[in-house]
């Protein structure tokens, strides 16, 4: 193909452009017809299909977008995942209050610990150790919190009955 040498620029364009790139725009920049763009994309797609390559081209409506192959997902998830090495003492205390006293409201937690609990509750929610359990039927209808299945898994419990019973 006379336009074979345009494959590299096309790849670079698709790489740089985070949004889908319309065929017309590609054709204009590469100074070819839109049919040629389709052929070029097919060529590029073929290159990317080979085993050692983690990228592919997606067609969306009349546009093309470069993205990663679906098989790469498990690696890419790790790029944004944060695993806490341990929970801070205040977080652990708050979690224990929720575990043993659930369902419990933020106000009730704060009454027990004597300090504000907002940021710790958010942190525990983010880590999926606690969840909202509806609202308490009192004035203000505050949210009640309880533990999650992730919580059980993290502490090696089959269910909440396996929590030690309270001594008082």
């Amino acid at each position, binding site marked *: 193909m006379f336009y074979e040498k345009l494959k590299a620029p096309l790849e670079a364009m698709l790489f*740089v452009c985070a949004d889908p790139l319309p065929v017309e725009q590609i054709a204009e920049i590469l100074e070819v017809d839109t049919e040629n763009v389709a052929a070029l994309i097919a060529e590029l797609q073929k290159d990317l299909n080979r085993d050692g390559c983690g990228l592919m081209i997606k067609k969306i409506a009349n546009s093309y977008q470069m993205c990663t192959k679906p098989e790469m997902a498990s690696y890419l998830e790790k790029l*944004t995942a944060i*695993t806490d*090495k341990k929970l801070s003492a205040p977080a652990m205390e708050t979690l*224990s209050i929720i575990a043993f006293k659930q369902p419990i409201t933020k106000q009730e937690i704060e009454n027990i610990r004597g300090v504000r609990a907002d940021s710790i509750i958010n942190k525990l929610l983010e*880590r*999926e150790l606690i969840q909202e359990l509806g609202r308490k039927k009192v004035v203000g209808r505050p949210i009640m919190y309880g533990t999650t299945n992730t919580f059980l898994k993290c502490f090696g419990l089959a269910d909440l009955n396996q929590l030690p019973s309270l001594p008082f």
Partner: protein
Amino acid sequence: MSLEYKVHLKAFEGPLDLLLHLIEKNKIDIYDIPVAVLTEQYLTYLNQFREFNIEIASEFLLMAAELLQIKSRIMLPERQHEAEDQQEDDPRQELVERLLEYRRFKEISNVLDEMAAVQEKIFYRESSLGPVRYLPPQNLDMKMLWQAFQNVMEGQLANEPIKKVTRDKFSVQDKMLIILKLLKDKEQNTLPFTEAFSDDSNRMEMIVTFLAMLELIKLQRISIKQNYSFSPIYIFLRNDEENVL
């Protein structure tokens, strides 16, 4: 005069820049600068600045003064041979070194400029990473949870007003009398703040002592003085009135 000329004048970043320009223009050997010639040309430029109403930065004037000084030092007759061994330093030495160093960085900045131009041809992507996710924490066990809960419960018990033996051991009233007695026994009725607390006092006793002090201040029986931040604090007895307790 054309506008370009004006711009050209303005283009000199500083006195060293202007001097280098003159040196290059006149093909002067930087290691053997004819200071008189250079100074004259430099001053001519400054005058041109003035003609165009370009504000002359103080650095340019400072350099003019330095040049004139070097020129005068060169023109002075050679000193009497009082210290014959000591080779007189060339008065131009320091200026030459400054010019050489400045020229080095001017040259290297051109190289960096070219390097940057190459990099400008390289394009990057915007990140398409998703938001940060938190995986379940590791290394958790029941013991930690249980321990944390007990800590909470103990903390809560301590907060509750339950009768504790130590509580009645010290009363604010008693402590007030003790502090007053301490002060009266002291010279000038003055006591360093820290000495009001006995060494073996526990937290509760310290708190009671402190409350007693506050009470005495309120009753205007004692005063507190500190000369400046973090200097020792002194308590002293106020004598404006005989005590009534």
